[in-house]
């Protein structure tokens, strides 16, 4: 096996062979989950703490379930309501937690780079569950696994990522992962929601869905966060849906067998038409949720192996 990382902070620092290793293992876990096979021994004795400094239901549940399926002792900490409100700095929170010797730390934070900062201060392995608009690596990995299972490969595909790219960590992690695996990436967004300098990332940039979706294999929709309306990024939800919402007419520009993805939670009628989201022939949105658990199981399994190996090496040295 080849997965060398100590933490999973982002896709940026993963090599293609590490991604493949992780996806192969996740693929097995996905099958086993369907068969109801249990793996309670894999993370037995491992303590997993989920620290969410930002609201999350789906991702936190997915990490919790993944840990429990592998036999870890899982603890959830709702950081929004806790010490941060009392003025404790992130570093102090990290040091306090580190003193409790957690093995796996799953962290979500509203600031880009905050999870990297925290990872510098702890002994366990850190998994980034989303840091600001920076990265969300397990989402990109679960998207990759979903694509691989639907399309039979994860290379030389034409993939469109559509919507609020500027504020999306999902988009950044996906651009990096799909780029590393040699796919053709097309970004579609109103110019106000397209980050600057994107053409330097080796992607194609489009301002209309009709052009951008031309002959793509995969259509990845992003959630439009309602709070963006206040920032004056788009004129109204209805105009956004008209120009950038995925409906049957726009989807016709993609390949006939193109799949439709969405990281959830969806705004039906804003970025995606309900009938497309529910179309079992096109939409793989439910599969994404299923793959999420499998990918997180694989990620924690691999990180725990590296952690145990490192600890063993330390003991031998001592």
């Amino acid at each position: 096996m080849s997965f060398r990382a100590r933490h999973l902070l982002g896709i940026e620092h993963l090599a293609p062979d590490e991604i493949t290793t992780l996806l192969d293992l996740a693929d097995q876990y996905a099958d086993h989950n369907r068969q109801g096979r249990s793996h309670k021994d894999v993370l037995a004795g491992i303590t997993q703490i989920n620290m969410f400094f930002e609201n999350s239901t789906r991702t936190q549940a997915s990490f919790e379930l993944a840990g429990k399926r592998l036999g870890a002792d899982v603890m959830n900490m709702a950081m929004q309501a806790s010490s941060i409100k009392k003025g404790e700095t992130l570093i102090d929170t990290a040091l306090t937690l580190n003193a409790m010797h957690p093995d796996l730390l799953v962290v979500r934070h509203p600031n880009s780079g905050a999870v990297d900062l925290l990872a510098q201060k702890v002994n366990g392995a850190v998994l980034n569950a989303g840091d600001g608009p920076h990265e969300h690596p397990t989402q990109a990995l679960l998207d990759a696994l979903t694509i691989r299972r639907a399309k039979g490969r994860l290379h030389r595909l034409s993939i469109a990522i559509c919507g609020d790219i500027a504020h999306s960590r999902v988009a950044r992690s996906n651009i990096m992962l799909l780029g590393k695996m040699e796919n053709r990436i097309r970004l579609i967004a109103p110019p106000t929601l397209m980050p600057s300098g994107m053409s330097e990332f080796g992607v194609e940039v489009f301002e209309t869905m009709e052009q951008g979706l031309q002959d793509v294999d995969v259509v990845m929709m992003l959630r439009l966060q309602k709070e963006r309306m206040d920032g004056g990024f788009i004129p109204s939800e209805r105009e956004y849906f008209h120009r950038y919402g995925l409906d049957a007419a726009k989807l016709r520009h993609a390949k006939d067998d193109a799949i439709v993805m969405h990281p959830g939670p969806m705004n039906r009628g804003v970025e995606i038409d309900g009938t497309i989201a529910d179309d079992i022939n096109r939409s793989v949105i439910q599969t994404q949720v299923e793959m999420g658990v499998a990918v997180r199981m694989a990620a924690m399994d691999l990180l725990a192996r590296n952690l145990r190996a490192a600890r063993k090496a330390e003991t031998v040295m001592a």
Partner: protein
Amino acid sequence: MTKTLFTNARLIRAVALTDNPGAMLIEGDSIAEVYDDTHPTVKDAQIIDCGGMCLAPGIIDIGVKISEPGERHKESFRSAGRAAAAGGVTTIVTRPDTLPAIDTPETLEFVERRASQDAPVNVLPMAALTKGRNGREMTEIGFLQDAGAVAFTDCDRVVTNTKVFSRALTYARSLDALVIGHVQEPGLSDGAAVTSGKFASLRGLPGVSPMAERMGLDRDIGLLEMTGAKYHIDQITTARALPALERAKRNGIDITAGVGIHHLTLNEFDVADYRTFFKLKPPLRSEDDRLAVVQAVADGLIDIICSMHTPQDEESKRLPYEEAASGAVGLETLLPAALRLYHEGLIDLPRLFRALSLNPAQRLGLRGGRMRPGHPADLVLFDPDAPFVLDRSTLLSKSKNTPFDGARMQGKVLGTWVAGQEVSGRL
């Protein structure tokens, strides 16, 4: 009067733009004579053999933040003064963005008293342009000037109300007072942590277009045409602002511009994995901008190089990037960092000292910056080539927030003289 003769020196002269061997005699607190001969004969003089090293006018650093009053744990007059002496800075021009702001003659007197007690180098204070730096009412510019304020600035806060700003500029003009401004269009730059572009997008950090600086400059040029005030821009950091600056100067507007040393030697990619010691205001720019600004200094379009010395404690830097404080210390690293430009062949030593010493002296109406008889004996002796690796724990500033920690640098200060007295040195 005591006489000191510096023999065997390499004289860096910013007025004549020469870099020649020679010698210099100082008597009391002034320069008495400058010689082309490296070993002139002078009776009764104490001799300092410079060993062929560079002797230049001491650096005059406009815009140094000393955290007194308010945050003395970050920097005091004593620590900043020692750092300045070690860095070859003979005059510190202090910023008024303290807690509280220096906006009354009384607070200004506090600064002057503390400085004269504790700092081994010259300290000249600036005062706020508006009360509390809030951009609403102008300060007592006349009283403050009488009390010794050498310039008026709200530092990194832009006076957004143009009516208030135009009145303050008009009033300052009647007193021939220098106003120093920060040119950033405030709406566009609101909330930004880095310069927009590939790096900002990669890191998921809020960015500001470099255009915000040009827009801020354009606005201020309009106000200067209107009021005729004497104006200095603290930092010009982007290529796009340069043509507007050049045009304004050509049109006879009384405008000069500075740039911080970090913008001359680092670019946006140095932030790398969210290194908050590289968080500055304005943020670091692209490499193209950096090179354009270096060229503008060499050409004399940008007049002044400063350290933008801004002490921050560890707590205010060890935070997620967006939340971390801006600024870096620079008094001790200003000269070796500036010498990077010299070693890269981008600028020669006389032009470097024109920007570090002569131009700031001229802009503030000081007699420093010149190596001529009768001028103050504020001098720095340095080895431009001596290599070292910077260890931030050795800095004399109370705060150690330098982006150059672990960096390979060249150039060591061998001695600093203020009014003929040696204030630090390794000779």
